[in-house]
């Protein structure tokens, strides 16, 4: 290994977003058309990687698969069972 340069006292400000934790998962949530845009899934996601987006005048949940770890909490809390579990393709 080489000697690296480090910051004084280990102080940092660089966001962790370079670490794409989506690579961890083996299953993932698929948001079906049943989604009513209630936003419950956006609240319970530990990664904060589901957001509501306007799609054709309706609000719909959209997953950022770069970070989704596949915990599937969103699916358990969706009031209309709009989230299905899918196998993550390698």
């Amino acid at each position, binding site marked *: 290994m080489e000697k690296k340069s*480090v*910051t004084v006292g*280990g102080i*940092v*400000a*660089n*966001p*962790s*977003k*370079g*670490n*794409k*934790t989506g690579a*961890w*998962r083996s299953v993932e949530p698929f948001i079906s058309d049943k989604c009513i845009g209630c936003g419950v899934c*956006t*609240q*319970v*996601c*530990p*990664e*904060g*990687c*589901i*957001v*509501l987006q306007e799609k054709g005048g309706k609000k719909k949940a959209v997953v*950022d698969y*770069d*970070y989704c*770890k*596949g*915990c*599937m*909490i969103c*699916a*358990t*809390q969706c009031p209309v069972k709009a989230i299905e579990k899918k196998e993550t393709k390698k």
Partner: protein
Amino acid sequence: MGEEFYQGHTSCAGCPAAIAIRHILQAAGKDVVISNATSCSEIFSSAYPNTAWPVPYIHVAFECAAAVAGGIEAALKKLGKEKTKVIALAGDGGTYDIGLQALSGMVDRGHDVLYICYDNECYANTGIQRSSATMFGAWTTTSPSGSKSVGNQTFKKPIAEMMIAQGAAYVATSSIAYPMDIQAKVKKALSIKGPKFLLIHAPCPLAWRFESSQTVDIAKLAVETGLWCMFEYENGKRTITIKPSMRPVEDYIKTQGRFKHLKAPEIAKIQEHVNGFWKKLKSE
């Protein structure tokens, strides 16, 4: 939503602490300083050379999040920056046990700090060892069940009651089952001057042995069985946030691998304990 806590942090899938932190930061806004104890939250959020925190953050050691927060608050006061809020964040280890002295001292001195403990009922960061927040009968690596043991021998230390006894300006309990309740209580706490204590129930898939998707459902069950009391205590008065339906504790216990060794006598003991708690509350 989504940018209050940077993605790319390395919490386990389904981590309740991550849910809690997102909502704490959403409610607290940007004018805040975080004092974090050594914990899962610290490890998964602050690996050099990156950080998951978009707000000023400091981690010092395991047992002194409250003391560090007190120092920050005093400095902000001297700098004329009292508007900036100070939040101490620790797990149950860094609060109930090794962090208890510093927490008590911070409350005693009356620092204007919101102390938030996310309670996963063990020392999760070091691999699931028993803490004084561990439930009676729960398996942990240092309170395993066996032919000579039913698991952890003690009931949870009543930390919130201790904070009430010490006279904290605001004491509340919440749960990751009700994220908007977390936000409401954080907002409320930050509007009050003085030392505040917020305890958030955080079921941990790894430590309690359940599938990652069950985190929120299990947290809800804890409330419905009465095992996790949601309340606020302010100005000498306790307000119950959610009146539980008092489902039998067995409904909760059977969902988690940490209890799978428990037999009827132990489950009865747990039921008796929670019934006693609510009876006492009624007479308050």
